[in-house]
């Protein structure tokens, strides 16, 4: 760089207010980009982490998801008899029938909050090994439930509202929280686990929603999925558990696209702000540009000087924006009856930094090129 960097940097202080406003605009845009990217990362990470490679979900052949599926006792017995199923130390098959309901819950003064209630047996903890209790007891009969680590976000209530001993109300029954579980960042973290019999009783069900199976060998997964799907004597379909959750995540793509769209709109706003500042900077220094050219500096030297100036604004705004975005790390965000943790990792910060750098670069080029291309004599006559 032939024009000194200090020339670019000191010029930032000639119009302090405008520079400060532009830094603030870039910071806001960067923060939005970081948070939106972190949100998308959280959603995708949850989908990626949900499910085990050796697990299969068996559902009603006509159902699109567990919530609308019905598995009869006959189907369950047939599934239980499959020889590929892994067995526990007591030689019982590792199979977890579940009843899933999207319900509206009252949590103290918080009424009608949507959530997913999953009726399960203790076998769930063997079949889905990411689920483990972090406090209290497992769900059990007598309407004793356990809540997931993101259930408060799904319900939109403070974490302390779901403390052990708190009472949830749904289906005109009181359900006492007896424990808290973690599902290792997977979709179950948003849910409430209850005893299977209790759920089937209060919802007056005579069928299960789905059955989760752990197989003895991962190599059995694909052949068994194919075999179950080809059978005509039962109306069930089998899906690899990971594939099932990936499919659910696809439903969130529109939300992610919306988040990306918001980030792009914000970035365009930042770009206009940055460009406006640089146009003002160029226009106020046209005679300087002419002088520099008389001294022998080329158009490229001058463009580069303005780009450095703009990138300095972008760097400062980007750093502030990344710092602000970082504050959102770990915050829960809710979509429908699921909650996700915003994950502001290195990639999210890098995305924010790239947005800031692009604003700095693209915002500087048109005004800088306009100024640098001006005829010397015309530039020298500028006021």
């Amino acid at each position, binding site marked *: 760089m032939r024009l000194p960097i*200090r020339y670019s940097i000191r010029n930032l202080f000639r119009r302090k207010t405008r520079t400060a406003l532009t830094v603030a605009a870039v910071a806001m845009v960067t923060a939005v980009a970081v948070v939106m990217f972190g949100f998308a990362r959280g959603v995708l990470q949850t989908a990626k982490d949900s499910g085990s490679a050796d697990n299969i979900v068996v559902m009603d052949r006509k159902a699109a998801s567990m919530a609308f599926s019905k598995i009869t006792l006959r189907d369950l017995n047939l599934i239980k008899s499959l020889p590929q199923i892994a067995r526990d130390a007591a030689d019982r098959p590792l199979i977890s029938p579940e009843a899933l309901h999207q319900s509206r819950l009252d949590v103290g003064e918080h009424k009608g909050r949507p959530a997913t209630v999953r009726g399960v047996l203790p076998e769930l903890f063997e079949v889905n090994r990411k689920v483990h209790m972090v406090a209290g007891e497992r769900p059990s009969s007598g309407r004793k439930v356990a809540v997931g680590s993101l259930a408060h976000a799904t319900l939109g209530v403070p974490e302390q509202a779901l403390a052990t001993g708190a009472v949830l109300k749904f289906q005109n029954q009181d359900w006492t929280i007896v424990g808290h579980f973690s599902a290792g960042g997977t979709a179950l973290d948003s849910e409430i686990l209850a005893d299977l019999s209790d759920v089937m009783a209060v919802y007056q069900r005579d069928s299960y929603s789905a059955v989760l199976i752990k197989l003895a060998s991962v190599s059995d997964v694909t052949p068994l999925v194919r075999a179950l799907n080809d059978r005509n004597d039962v109306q069930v379909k089998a899906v690899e558990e990971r594939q099932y959750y990936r499919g659910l995540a696809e439903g969130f793509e529109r939300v992610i696209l919306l988040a990306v769209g918001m980030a792009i709109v914000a970035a365009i706003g930042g770009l206009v702000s940055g460009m406006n500042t640089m146009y003002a900077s160029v226009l106020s220094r046209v*005679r300087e540009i002419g002088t520099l*050219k*008389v*001294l*022998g500096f*080329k158009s490229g030297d001058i463009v580069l000087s303005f780009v450095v100036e703009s990138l300095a604004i972008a760097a400062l705004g980007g750093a502030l924006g990344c710092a602000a975005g970082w504050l959102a790390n770990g915050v829960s965000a809710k979509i429908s009856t699921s909650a996700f943790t915003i994950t502001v990792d290195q990639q999210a910060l890098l995305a924010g930094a790239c947005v800031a750098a692009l604003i700095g670069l693209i915002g500087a080029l048109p005004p800088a090129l306009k100024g640098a291309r001006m005829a010397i*004599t015309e530039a*020298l006559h500028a006021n």
Partner: protein
Amino acid sequence: MSATTIISVRNLRKTYDTGESKVTPLDGVNLDIAEGEFVSLMGPSGSGKTTLMNIIAGVDKPTAGLVHVGGVNLAELSDAKLARWRNRNIGYVFQQFNLMPVLTAQENVELPLMLLPLSSRQRKHQAKMALTAVGLDDRLRHYPRQLSGGQQQRVAIARAIVTDPKIIAADEPTGNLDRNSEEEVLGILRILNSRFGKTILLVTHDPHAASFAGRRIHLDKGVLSETAPTVLKEPVEEAA
């Protein structure tokens, strides 16, 4: 073109298109300037004197005609080569000083040296020498706003001479100065010419400023005329 001729202008024409009409301030101008001459270019506003100087300095381009400076046909140079040529051969002094307000006096003078293969230390040394030559060695770290008009113009002269160019082109360099500062600046130009052999091209409408030149050229309606050389003004000692 004689051996001592540094500037040769032949059949120079410059036409500006203002959109509504075409203006031709220079039409068929011929001029030779010998190396080491101090030439003043006078004329009424719009007579084309600054245009002529800008074309000679490689700042503007002619519509037609030939301009040789130091044996170089400027029309043959690309914009990039012309910029490089200006840096090494022309020291330009503006009426309004045109210093960079965010740079100190020394940093302003260093600017043309940024384009030469010099170390930072060499640049600083040469800039200091140039500022010392114009009597501002005690103002190195001052910003333009901290200097008087006369001092700012002396910084601009230091910037113009720091690359040791053969030609100094000064466009109304005293137009914004009081009488004392004007004398200082003109005295410095006179010394640069008499002591260091610089060829000076001074555009002015002020007869007093023009009287410092050894050769006075009048430009009016595109026609050049010369007045007889006069006894040169003595250099102003304090500026040396």
